[in-house]
């Protein structure tokens, strides 16, 4: 066996990894071969040099760092975490789109701007067209408002058409029950007390009209704003809320450029709906008068006659053929003191929606 073979075995010999025979052969050879012996010595030296390399210590926080990562992994393994995160992202995206669509931007914008507008002291700019006598004093108007409108929502109507105010007070489509109505009135009283102070009114009423005015809000069942106003809760379940709102907008000063889009929408909606005529009838006996009015309406062939009772007032509504409107008005005048009939515009449409508020004569 020559030195080259032995050299190959020396490494393993050093490690004690040779078979018994190989080991014997190497040892036999080493006895006689000085070169191989020195090779073995050099090999031993080299190995000890490598072995002599100092061990490094792990940084003190390494174990904690590792465990932190592992605990995260154990709680939500990556194969669960990634799909979860993806699902969450998708859910957020869809929710955002949904929210964006339900609160239309125009409505949102309007919602922000309205309070300011109502806060502005543009107060008695327009005389009431229906209820109003010529040049009513503010107190008088206030009093009318008190009787007509139980909701805080009416406050904004001061600057607008009195008819709206009336209408707003009346859950004309008749699903509102009496108890909520009573509640409304309490609310209204409270609001009015605040209103009585000259300039203060803007603030307390600021929120209510805003909500009442925004059709998108009414339509969106989840809108949180609704819950804030009992009036809204008691209002008839949006049969045609857009139409109500539209009238308000129609009469409103043209200052609302910002909500032009929303306005257009509303104007369109009113064009589609029937014309509305709102009247107030002051009588001694409301119950008896209500029956009389119902008879009158029946005789005129009115459809969908509804009567809503409140604490000291009734509101009746019906759809009427336009041609009978003037005759009905004449008959109503015989029942009691009728207001609001002075300024009824020419009827363009075949049918008209008539709303009659019955009030106790003072």
């Amino acid at each position, binding site marked *: 066996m020559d030195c080259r073979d032995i050299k190959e075995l020396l490494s393993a010999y050093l490690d004690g990894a040779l078979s018994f025979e190989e080991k014997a052969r190497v040892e036999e050879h080493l006895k006689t071969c000085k070169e191989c012996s020195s090779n073995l010595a050099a090999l031993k030296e080299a190995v000890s040099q490598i072995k002599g390399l100092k*061990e490094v210590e792990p940084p003190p926080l390494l174990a904690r760092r590792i465990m932190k990562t592992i605990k995260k992994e154990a709680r939500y393994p990556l194969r669960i975490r990634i799909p979860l995160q993806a699902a969450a992202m998708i859910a957020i995206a869809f929710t955002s789109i949904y929210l964006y669509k339900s609160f239309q931007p125009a409505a949102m914008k309007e919602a922000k701007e309205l309070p300011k507008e109502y806060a502005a002291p543009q107060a008695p700019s327009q005389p009431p067209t229906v209820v109003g006598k010529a040049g009513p004093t503010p107190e008088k108007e206030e009093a009318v408002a008190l009787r007509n409108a139980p909701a805080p929502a009416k406050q904004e109507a001061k600057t607008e058409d009195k008819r709206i105010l009336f209408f707003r007070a009346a859950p004309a489509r008749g699903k509102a029950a009496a108890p909520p109505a009573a509640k409304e009135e309490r609310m209204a009283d409270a609001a009015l007390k605040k209103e009585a102070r000259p300039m203060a009114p803007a603030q307390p009423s600021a929120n209510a009209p805003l909500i009442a005015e925004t059709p998108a809000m009414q339509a969106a069942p989840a809108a949180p704003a609704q819950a804030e106003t009992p009036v809204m809760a008691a209002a008839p379940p949006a049969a045609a809320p857009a139409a109500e709102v539209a009238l308000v907008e129609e009469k409103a000063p043209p200052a609302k450029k910002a909500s032009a889009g929303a306005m257009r929408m509303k104007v369109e909606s009113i064009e589609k709906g029937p014309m509305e005529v709102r009247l107030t009838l002051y009588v001694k006996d409301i119950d008896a008068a209500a029956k009389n009015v119902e008879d009158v309406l029946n005789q005129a062939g009115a459809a969908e006659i509804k009567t809503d009772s409140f604490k000291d007032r009734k509101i009746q509504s019906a759809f009427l053929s336009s041609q009978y409107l003037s005759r009905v008005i004449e008959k109503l005048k015989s029942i009691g003191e009728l207001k609001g009939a002075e300024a009824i515009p020419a009827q363009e449409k075949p049918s008209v929606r008539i709303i009659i508020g019955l009030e106790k004569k003072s």
Partner: protein
Amino acid sequence: MIVEQRPVPDEDAGLVSLCKGGATGPFETLVKRHQKKMLNIVYRMIGDYEEACDVVQEAFVSAFKGINGFEGKSRFSTWLYSIAINQARNRLKQMKARRQFEARSIDNPVPGRDRLIRLEPASGDPPAAETIERKEIQSKVQECINTLEHGYREILVLRDMQGFSYDEIGSMLGLPEGTVRSRLFRAREAFMKKMKSHLGDL
């Protein structure tokens, strides 16, 4: 030099079976038990302390994830270290690619910067008895190891530094014992050659 005979039963077996249910507590014990050895293997393989710490962390995490796949055919430590060795190999490739990229960078030229030659960054104060000469030899040794090809470097670290048996090295590197023996022989030859050219008189 005689191969140390380790006890055949795996001291980690109990903890490992607890970890298979997903428990992290017993795994922490395993981390504490093996982190130093793993760090030293990886550090000597890739020569960069920070990178080595990273690799060790990665290796422990993937060991935890894959612990259910550990069948107990080898010792747990052998299995664990083989994961670390694989991760270190990958890291070496990444570092090599990064170095090439950095070398070409005009914005950030770092002349003479070779991460592989940086030595002992974590060793605290050297023992008072340690002479400068000894320190120099150590740095020469590391330099020589670093210039060896990866296969040789690995096997020298595992055998001569860490003292693993041929059998263990074989299962860590996935090599038959005969290959371990011949590769170790060639690695030592190559190392001696390098040392000779570095120190002159070895």
